[in-house]
């Protein structure tokens, strides 16, 4: 049965952009409908940020326990090596995902949002046909918020299927592959590859660029390179993956090395992690007169598309494809629709890699600052000199906090860190940039002893003077 209805706000996509937009719109009293084909939560919650963090946590725990087997460590020893049942680990991860997805659903209904489980397809910019399990619905919306998200990018010549997997499948494997070959040493490939290394796989990276994590500078990625080396993880750079032969017992990856020679690696699983592409097909985008910006939907600083009252947020509108950017945009759009004056004008969108060790980057790196013609100084402080880091075995991974500030007025333009647990420092870094903090503001804030955040204060002191705990 096909029913018709009208609403004030239609949100397409229940990921961190769409569900936040819908909750805020509902809270502001707007008649809001959210359409999602899957459970609510999106890539982030169902097959991205959250499940990967669960897997990384379990892998780290397993690796730690292994270190205590036999002779032990820190005076703690266990008599036999720990055993892993990956199926049960995945169940535990799925429970977390279910709990969070249920939570999002609860928040949506509490905010008065109607959630329709179905596939939205636009006949024109404001008319949406929704296929649901019990037939169809036609919705006429005054405002449309497009939050369709992105999908993993497939490599030409290496289609997904069989033992060629994407990050989605990598988060639900039932057995630890003996040898995992990861194509792409960006943050997704590295996070998963490192987790599987900790779980016991042999891991090989095949990267097209010259080095891992090319968006970060070498100083920041060195501790990760060291970890990979220490754990016998091979990284083949400058290599072009061409095809995977799945006819034999094991998949065999064919690639061209730096010299242009064709080489092969046999693997148990080939994980393709070469990025994500916006979801622009299959839902009637072509029927809406909205301008595009390359593969993305073009928006202005209020996330307006070229058609009045059609808004787009998140991965659909461009880099960085990060959940927290999508959420910030979603909240803003809902408020603009409700009549508030808002615009998307963050000083910085912080980014974190949950690699071993972790990387945080907020604002400009020293190199980027120089490229912009800024005259800056850099202050750096190692975790090796932070007491708390040593007490939690986080002082020997080569980690540090680094601050980039302008020489003329000492305004901080970037803060980066690498090291175990540094992701949790990102809040202070982002706040410093948004508040327009000077180096002296961070240096003059008393930081708790003993915590890792002391490294931030010390790096601030080091920028235009001298840190205390430095020779």
């Amino acid at each position, binding site marked *: 049965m096909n029913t018709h209805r009208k609403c004030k706000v239609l949100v397409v996509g229940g990921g961190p952009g769409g569900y936040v937009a819908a909750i805020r719109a509902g809270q502001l009293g707007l008649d809001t409908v959210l359409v999602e084909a899957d459970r609510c939560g999106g890539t982030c919650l169902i097959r991205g940020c959250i499940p990967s963090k669960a897997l990384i946590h379990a892998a780290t725990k397993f690796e730690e326990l292994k270190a205590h087997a036999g002779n032990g460590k820190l005076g703690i020893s266990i008599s036999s090596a720990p055993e892993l049942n990956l199926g049960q680990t995945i169940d535990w991860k799925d429970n977390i995902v279910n709990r969070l997805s249920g939570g999002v659903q609860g928040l949506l209904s509490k905010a008065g949002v109607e959630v329709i489980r179905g596939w939205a397809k636009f006949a024109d910019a404001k008319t949406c046909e929704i296929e649901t399990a019990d037939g169809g619905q036609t919705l006429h919306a005054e405002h449309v918020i497009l939050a369709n998200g992105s999908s993993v990018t497939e490599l030409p010549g290496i289609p997904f299927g069989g033992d060629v997997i994407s990050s989605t499948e990598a988060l639900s494997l039932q057995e630890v592959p003996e040898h995992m070959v990861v194509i792409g040493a960006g943050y997704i490939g590295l996070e998963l590859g490192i987790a599987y290394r900790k779980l016991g796989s042999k891991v090989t990276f095949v990267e097209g660029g010259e080095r891992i994590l090319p968006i970060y500078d070498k100083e920041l990625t060195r501790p990760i390179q060291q970890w990979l080396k220490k754990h016998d993880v091979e990284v083949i750079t400058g290599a072009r993956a061409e095809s995977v032969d799945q006819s034999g017992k094991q998949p065999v990856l064919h690639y061209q090395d730096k010299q242009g020679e064709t080489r092969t690696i046999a693997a148990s699983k080939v994980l393709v992690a070469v990025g994500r592409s916006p979801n622009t097909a299959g839902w009637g985008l072509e029927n809406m007169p909205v301008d595009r910006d390359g593969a993305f939907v073009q928006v202005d600083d209020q996330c307006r598309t070229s058609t009045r009252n059609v808004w787009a947020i998140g991965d659909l509108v461009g880099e960085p494809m990060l959940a927290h950017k999508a959420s910030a945009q979603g909240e803003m759009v809902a408020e603009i629709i409700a009549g508030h004056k808002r615009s998307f004008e963050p000083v910085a969108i912080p980014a974190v890699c949950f690699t071993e060790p972790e990387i945080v980057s907020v*604002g400009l790196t020293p190199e980027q600052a120089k490229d912009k013609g800024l005259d800056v100084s850099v202050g750096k402080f190692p975790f090796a000199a932070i007491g708390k880091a040593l007490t939690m075995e986080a002082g020997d991974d080569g980690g540090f906090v680094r601050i980039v500030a302008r020489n003329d007025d000492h305004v901080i333009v970037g803060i980066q860190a690498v090291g175990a647990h540094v992701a949790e420092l990102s809040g202070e870094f982002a706040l410093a940039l948004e508040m327009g903090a000077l180096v*002296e503001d961070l240096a003059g804030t008393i930081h708790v002893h003993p915590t890792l955040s002391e490294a931030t204060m010390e790096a601030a002191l080091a920028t235009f003077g001298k840190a205390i705990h430095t020779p």
Partner: protein
Amino acid sequence: MGHYSFKLPDLGEGIVESEVVDWYVSVGDTVEEDQHIADVMTDKATVELSAPVSGVIRNVGCEAGAMLAVGAELVLIETEGEGNAPEPTAQPAKAEPAVPAQPAAVAEPEPEIMAPVQKTTISHVPGRHEVLAAPSVRRRAREEDIDLGVVPGTGPAGRITNSDLDNFIAAGGMQAALPVSNLRAARSATTEVPIRGLRRMIAQKMVQSKRNIPHYSYIEEVDVSALEELRQHLNQNRKPHQPKLTLLPFIMQALTKVLPEFPFCNARYDDEREVLTQYEAVHIGIATMTEKGLMVPVVKHGESLDIWQSAAELSRIADAARDGSAKADELTGSTITITSLGAIGGIASTPVINAPETSIIGVNKLQERPVVHNGEIVVRKMMNLSSSFDHRVVDGYDAALMVQALKRLLENPASIFV
């Protein structure tokens, strides 16, 4: 390979020609289907037109700023697919099939009025800080429409604090930002401003009105003390869903009541045919100041609305005109117009009739004034009405009677509603 002739589509009721305000393509450019190619001005709205097919632009119909007739060729596109037009070059005598008589396809059935989209690159790296201010300060500035670039910051490194913003607003906002040193310097520059788009349309309508219509203006004062009391009472006791009442809805209600007695004031005069069309419906144009200039959105069928509905509709159409979402039919078809400068001040005005209407009612500022009432000087709430009439079809005597009838209703507000 073919040629596609994209003709200027009919963009609204009765529009025979439109101004092409801006071109986004020129001859030789390659365009994609649905690519934005031009902005055209209809009535009082700007409409974006998109290419109906992909191809190469071979001809454009006029220069930016020129008028183009509906049905005239806007662009000729050389397209991969089948065209709808003959080759522009001279054709051999070989009988080319006639151009199918299909109307030019419009890219979208209903061209939506669109706001220009500025491409924004979302960057996770801040560059030079033009403005240094905390998110809370930036948000407040946005809400108050203040450009932080002109606010002096007193914090470290020139950071703008919340109290800087307070001081800036207290000191008179934008004016505080003017460099004082320039105020007394002699200045010699001139600026030429091309009158285009809505401004040109306003200019043409004003000339048409003033040149063709012998205006007769009549100013009368109205004692609105009782009306104000009623208005305040209604506002204090309104239900949550009811809008706050200003004076205008009362004047609209009073007009709908008196106009049936003065049908020549609720009318449109076609001077070429010499026919005066008198309307039973009262469609009230509301002169509205917008960012782009004067617009006159219309409250349709004022006679069918109660006071609350009048107020709600008034604010809806005025908002629509201001934010550019008003549709063509919400900007046309008025039978009488109200223009109010009450909020600014002024004791009288000489409103220009919104041709081809015959009457315009101007509302001046409500003020407490001493008046003689039953032989005593008392303070009353007084407001002037400055109205203009087309003297060709409305005699001064009748116009005065109309205003007096309106005055009687407004001074005895209960009679508006019975």
